[in-house]
């Protein structure tokens, strides 16, 4: 089993609890702290990408998340909110990275490489992150809640119950909204490529 990791930065726990009790100032202090932590984490992961070891196992991310707060001291709801925050930040970090990477690759005249090489089997259907980000913005224009659900699920790894807790809606609603959002995003992102044809070509 996982060894109990000492929290790297105890203040985060306190700030989190304060935030969940309505202290918005606590949030303002919390965000940069978490952001820095996540950046360091993402940076480490993304650097290792160069040596062909990308986000090797997502477990790492979470171990890092957990090191930031004393998980036992915060309630389930607070944890959910914390992960929601992480999801938002993680999205920003990863998108920024993808943007820089694209710019540098373009500069070299190379192609835009997928961010996470090791997820080979998902590669075919993993969305282009920059395109996804833009599509999510468009989705937020239409229904911000659906965009949040996608963010929490995809960038934060929250499950249905957690998302329901964060957004204060029922988990059945989460399921419905997610289903539609996913379908809409799929269409937004897949229009140029017909996955059926891709599969058919592979089958020869």
């Amino acid at each position: 089993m996982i060894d109990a990791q000492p929290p790297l930065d105890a203040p985060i726990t306190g700030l989190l609890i304060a935030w969940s009790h309505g202290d918005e100032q606590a949030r303002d202090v919390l965000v940069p702290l978490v952001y820095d932590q996540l950046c360091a984490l993402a940076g480490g992961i993304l650097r290792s990408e160069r040596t062909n070891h990308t986000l090797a196992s997502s477990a790492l991310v979470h171990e890092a998340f957990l090191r930031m707060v004393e998980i036992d001291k915060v309630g389930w709801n607070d944890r959910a909110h914390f992960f929601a925050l992480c999801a938002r930040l993680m999205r920003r970090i990863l998108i920024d990275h993808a943007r820089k990477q694209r710019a540098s690759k373009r500069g070299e005249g190379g192609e835009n490489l997928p961010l996470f090489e090791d997820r080979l089997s998902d590669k075919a259907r993993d969305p282009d992150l920059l395109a996804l980000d833009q599509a999510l913005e468009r989705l937020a224009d239409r229904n911000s809640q659906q965009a949040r659900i996608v963010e929490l699920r995809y960038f934060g790894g929250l499950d249905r119950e957690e998302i329901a807790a964060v957004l204060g809606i029922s988990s059945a609603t989460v399921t419905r909204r997610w289903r539609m959002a996913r379908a809409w995003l799929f269409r937004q992102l897949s229009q140029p490529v017909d996955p059926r044809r891709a599969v058919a070509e592979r089958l020869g």
Partner: protein
Amino acid sequence: MRADDEIEGWNRLSDLFDQAIEKPAAERGAFVARVCADEPALGRSLEELLVSEARAGTFMEAPLVRRAAGSAASAMIPSTDADADPTNAEPVDTDPAGDRQHASRRGEPRIGDHIGAYRVLRPLGQGGMSTVFLAIRDDDTFKRRVVVKLVRADLRDADLERRLRTERHILASLAHPNIARLFDGGTTEDGRPYFVMEYVEGLPITTFADRYQLSVDERSALFRKVLGAVQYAHQNLVVHRDLKPSNILVAADGEPHLLDFGIAKLLNPDLSADDVHATATWLRLMTPHYASPEQVCGKLVGTASDIYSLGVLLYELLAGRLPFDFARATPGEIERTLTERDPPRPSTVVVAARADAETTAPTSAGSASSDPASSDIARNRMLEPHELQRRLRGDLDAIIMKALRSAPQRRYASAERFADDLERFAKNLPVGARKGTWYYRIGKLVRRRRTAAAVTISLALALAVGAGVLAQKHAQVLRERDNAQRERSQRDTVLALLLEVLQVADPNVSLGETYSIREALDSSAPKLRRLLADQPALRAELLHTTGTIYHNLGLWPRARVDLEAALSLRKSLFGDRDPSVARTQSRLALVLANLGEVDTARALTTQAVETSRGARGSVPAADVAILNDQVTVLCAAQDYEAALPLAEEALALARSASNREGLPTALINRAMVALRKDEPTHAAVLFQQGAELLALRFGDDHPRLVNPLSNLGSARRRAGDLTGARDAFEQALTIQQTALGETHPTLAITLNNLAGIHVARGEHAEAIEVFGQAADVFERQAGPDHPRLFFLEIQIAQSRIAAGTPSVAREDLQQSLAHWRNRIGAEHRFVLLADLALGRALTALGDFDAAEPLLHAGFDRAMAAGWQRDAASCLALLRTLHEAMGTPERSEPFARRLEDWDAGEG
């Protein structure tokens, strides 16, 4: 404002999407059309969304940032469990502390625990025999993720470790790109065996195929890869024994990966029939849908068992349904079904879900509750239901049914053979599963040569057919030497043309197009005639041939046109008294008899026979066909007195002939006359001989056997041999279903006859089922308004009364009467018959007050209409009624009247 409008529109779209997605896929189109009738733009958006939803597959299912150990949610969606809706996948346990307690109670490893040298990353799922984990070997520099299968604690087996040691290296040596590798295996400290396997991310093959809407050809291609892997394993003497969709995962690159090869055998080494307990356990643990009959019966299991399971898989992959539905079946029922019944052919289950509420045995594919709509199944294959049916009918039916034979030795001998046949199908070559019948081979030939020029193809077909006919006549000894010479040179010309066509034809194949003989003939015959414009003799031969083919296809008007043209051509070339003229006359007579022009037919056939007899007065042996045709025509004219001596003559001639071409027909014709002259025993013997000869020549599943077998059944029945009659009808039925298709007109007749036998044998449940099938077939052929359907409903009701369920019969009859009375008029005889059946049902139910007036009125109606037999039935029913009422004295007049009647008739 625009933005507000947009949000408003989005919310509507969202609501409608939620509503639509809850509906079965087949109903969504109609739903969209209905609710968006006035808003085409909204309708389009909604449709796009629904399509995207269906196609999105695993898109974004797996979060980019995954949850792992100790986080608020302890496990992610198992990626191998593709059937789970991602948003519905519950974490294994949301409370880590609870998880710990729960886990330790079950003795299952937790995240981070070790199984052997492997650290558990997360649970993947729970199988019948084991718990499955995603794990990693800490000292593995490649950080390769693996799957660890930990055998359930209660399945621990003292002998297992030894078997593991001996077999592990065999399994580990299986190296095939489509087989998930077995890396390792061992036993935990507490003695539980585990296996370490390659981790495959993918979808079960059936799910994959539907998500990506693979076509029938793509599915078949994918399946052939599976067969390749199985063949490899079988060559290495490893049998899978548990092949099913969840053990065949298809990765995103479209490659299938077979999991768990040999594991089932390791866990269950020697099941034997006497180890009832082991067999029962096994059955409970494995999915019975994919199990072979020998597996279910606890017999020895070999490679043929895998072939069977693969047959089930291909069935499901192509037809979208399972061969049998065992959802509610007991092990005994499963065993009986698998050993005693053939599943319905795949092409028969794709058009409409059959609702046989009456069928007690679990035969119908798909249960009502979980039955996917036919249109969905077809749409997932990019087809309409009837297109899918056409695609499956014939070769694919035959291939799948061969894999699903209950006798292991009658299945494909190897996965390779299985794959060969599928490949041959893909290339439009004749497949081994179908016996090479004449039409079948020619149909294949045409499909294969489609790329050649149209005229060439048509030539190939028509001349191949022509050559076939000519070859049959090859041994004919002609009276006139000149004629022989002439015909031989014609034949040579035809054969030379055929050969040329075959050499020229492009061997490249074009898939998926069917091209019926009729279409080929329709489009090619005129061209051929033009080609042969300056060779009238050959043109006449061609017309005679095409006319014969149209006749064989039952297309009589077309046959008539060609044969009449051939006749006038031949007459002008060779005169009225030429043998070739007689042959065309004879064939034309047959066509006219079928068209109902019996008198003209008679005249023609008489002329033909006269010509053939010539000066000598006897028909030459080579022309026995002409004599046979005449008997057929006379039978059609119902002049059996005239037919009898000719039938005798034809039979004697056919027996004396050096070749026996004409013998089966002569036997069957003679039998027909015997049957009509009320000599059923004699008829049965002759029909049987005729059928046996035909079977010898064409194979025992040739369509030509259908008529003689049906007649054999009728003859046997009249001779009192009910068992023999049933056998004959069933044999005819099998051929009809395999060779002629579900809509052939004779199918309903045979089913009806078979049901009649069941009635006579007192097998009421079977009778009800077969009558029901007959009604299905008949409705498909004749539409729902044909009165014959009513008659079948009445017969079903009669069987229900006899089976002891008169209340069901009463209800059915009342419904039928309400439906049909308006449609066909209250005066129709079937309405009377239904009333009589209803009277019988009411009598059986003790509702005498309702029964009595019904039967009295029925008697009056029958007498008024002159239906004496029905009136007699009424009397018999009234007698029964009064006996049941305890007023036998009132029944006496009826009984007496009935006796008088019988005496009068007798």
